[in-house]
């Protein structure tokens, strides 16, 4: 009766697994590929009973008519997608591109910082800054060497590129803030720093640039439902204002954001999330057992 969206059936056309928790999905959606700008995100519903989860558009290919999502399996929905979203399958729903696109101004020297999975969403911004003629310094951080992805792709769009790992298995040993410290020491003329990653990392990046008053843009990831400004679940504190990240953001001035508030609000559904994951894993185990018996 109601077509989901006949222009595209949201087919997954490619998939890549970066590690046992991180995977990439390339989804066919020509209109979205055409409309997407760096900094925007989509809301995905993987099946009819699924949750609506926000995911950043990590890349888009207008010629192929696809967008790319990079996903970390953290809970029920993202693990279930990790298991079920194989090439040739379809997503139940995907809507976007949402949010105000990142402002790619005429900054001359820009630092783009990605922490863990945040490397994917910061990539289109690095590329856009590069294309608009800026000198781009990339800093990416991972826990260890085996979690690194998109190194070459990222490096190709940067004038300088730094890898940090928590355990020192690649690049600098330490957090991305260590990388930022070194870059700030070397360059006195940085116009802007863009940081995407876990809230605690973005908070650290904002703290690192605050003394030098370098414009610092962060991309916030509060819990969302509709992504259209209708529910207010995604509200964040920025300066003395309350903003809805899905329509007023997701990019905000890192020096104004109340990160502690964001981190607390992300805990909102911890008990339910735990329950959902346990129940799902138990279901998988039973399925696995039954499958074993069948064969």
């Amino acid at each position, binding site marked *: 009766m109601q*077509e989901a*969206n006949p222009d595209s059936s949201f087919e997954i056309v490619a998939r890549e697994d970066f590690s046992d928790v991180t995977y990439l999905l390339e989804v066919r959606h020509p209109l979205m590929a055409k409309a997407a700008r760096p900094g925007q995100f989509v809301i995905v519903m993987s099946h009819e*009973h699924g949750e609506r989860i926000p995911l950043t558009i990590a890349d888009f290919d207008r010629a192929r008519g696809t967008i790319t999502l990079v996903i970390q399996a953290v809970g*029920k929905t993202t693990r279930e997608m990790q298991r079920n979203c194989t090439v040739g399958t379809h997503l139940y729903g995907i809507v976007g591109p949402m949010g105000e696109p990142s402002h790619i101004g005429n900054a001359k020297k820009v630092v783009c910082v990605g922490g863990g999975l945040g490397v994917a969403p910061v990539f289109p911004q690095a590329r856009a800054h590069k294309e608009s003629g800026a000198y781009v310094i990339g800093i990416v951080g991972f826990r260890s060497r085996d979690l690194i992805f998109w190194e070459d792709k990222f490096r190709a769009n940067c004038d300088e590129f730094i890898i940090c790992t928590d355990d020192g298995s690649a690049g600098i040993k330490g957090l991305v803030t260590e990388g930022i410290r070194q870059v700030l020491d070397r360059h006195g003329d940085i116009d802007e720093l863009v940081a995407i990653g876990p809230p605690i990392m973005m908070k650290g990046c904002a703290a690192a640039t605050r003394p030098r008053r370098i414009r610092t843009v962060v991309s916030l990831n509060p819990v969302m*439902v509709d992504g259209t400004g*209708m529910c*207010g679940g995604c509200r964040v504190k920025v300066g003395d204002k*309350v903003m809805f990240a899905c329509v007023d953001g997701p990019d905000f001035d890192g020096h104004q954001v109340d990160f502690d508030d964001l981190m607390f609000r992300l805990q909102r559904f911890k008990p*339910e999330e735990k329950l959902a994951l346990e129940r799902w894993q138990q279901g998988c185990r039973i399925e696995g057992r039954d499958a074993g018996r069948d064969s």
Partner: protein
Amino acid sequence: MVKKRTIRTIPQERTAIAEQPARERISNFGEVSCGYRQEEALRESERCLLCPEQPCVAGCPVGIDIPGFIHKIGEKDFRGAYDTLTDTNLLPAICGRVCPQETQCEGVCTVGDTLAPVAIGRLERWVGDMAIAEGWANVPYIEPNGFKVGIVGSGPAGMACAADMAKAGCSVTVFEAFHQPGGVLRYGIPDFRLPNEVIDAEIEKLTRLGIKFKCNTLVGRLFTIEEMVGEMGFHTVFIGTGAGYPSFMGIPGESLNGVLSANELLTRCNLMRAREFPAHDTPIELGRRVAVIGAGNTAMDAMRVCLRLGAERVYCVYRRTKAEAPARAEEIHHAEEEGIEFNWLTSPLEILDDGNRGVRGMRCQRMELGEPDASGRRRPVATPGSEFEFECDMVVFAIGTNANPILGQTSQIKLDKRGYIAADETLATSLDGVFAGGDIVTGAATVIEAMGAGRKAARAMKAYLGLRDTETIYSQAADSGEGRLFGIPPGERNYARLRVA
């Protein structure tokens, strides 16, 4: 034939309607009101005096021929009653359920001067439900006219506009951001007031008119309004995106976990089916003691949803009195029956932290009514020294909405100073060929007004395309006879040409 009815001869009591008992219904999401049976509808239809002045018709925002449809019920011409209703109202099964009849048709009913007014809403619903059960739909013979019409938003405004444009022969596509159509009817109003099957049935009728629904489409972001009337080739576009953007008060404690907007609560529960968590993935917090701020329909829905989700106590906190509460009278009545505890003349000051970023209670103050304000309602003023605290673990804000910013962010369309889309009296916007109506123009209003706006815009859109307006209801005043050529008014000349071609 029928003897002349007078106020003395008609049944004196308003025909009661069967309802799920309050004690049972608070633990399910089944519909509260069971609707009339045929003999009850027939009896209630006899209460209509068929008065010549027809105050009720003037009281209805879309001017339904109320005595006309009620008379047909009395004659057992049920299909005829449905046809009369749908001459003006596309969604009788929905409006019969959700209209604030007490301030519209029933509020001015002549019988109401002496007795309880005729139960117009219940009769309307009864006919609407029969139409759904019998599969009636008025699908006229539609001659395609080659025009492409785009509708943004699938709420009542968009649905009504889409239907009229489709009936006029246009190829109509409705774009909806959510994964299911229906707007507030779907995500906001809970099943116990408006079951999903009713919405599905009405949408199904629209698809039978050839209307296409494209969900998962965020207009403004996936493509712009300007692109729609430009390269995408829509000859005219209607915007019915609703109000959205819920307000908070800016009091301390609003960002605590356990504080949310009614829109979020209702969307999680209704559209995302969080009440069936974990069978459905979307979670929802379950408050034991819930305070809901506000006393409109949204607040009533939020309170009654919380009760059904298992809350032990649900409080309504409202700074004016029951007399000023904007909700439908029936909803307040049902809420009272279900055990909602009303705190009239109470205004929140602070939401209290339980030390764990959750809610432990609320601090409020008592109010008194002072001088009338701009809305004509007496302004509540704080009573000094009346502050008090009470315990609760969840707080829901239902104090209204602001304009959704997306279309303003993504197009040149002119907004008014509050951020709503600016439209003239024909509902034309500042962009050529683009019309708008419903909550996004007026601010939060009602289903029937949104629907009326959708139809009003459709009329202007037909005139814009040069199509003949077959809906006389709205056109009587417009054609003054001036500028007629061969007896054809100017707005309809293209229509004549099209027919010849």
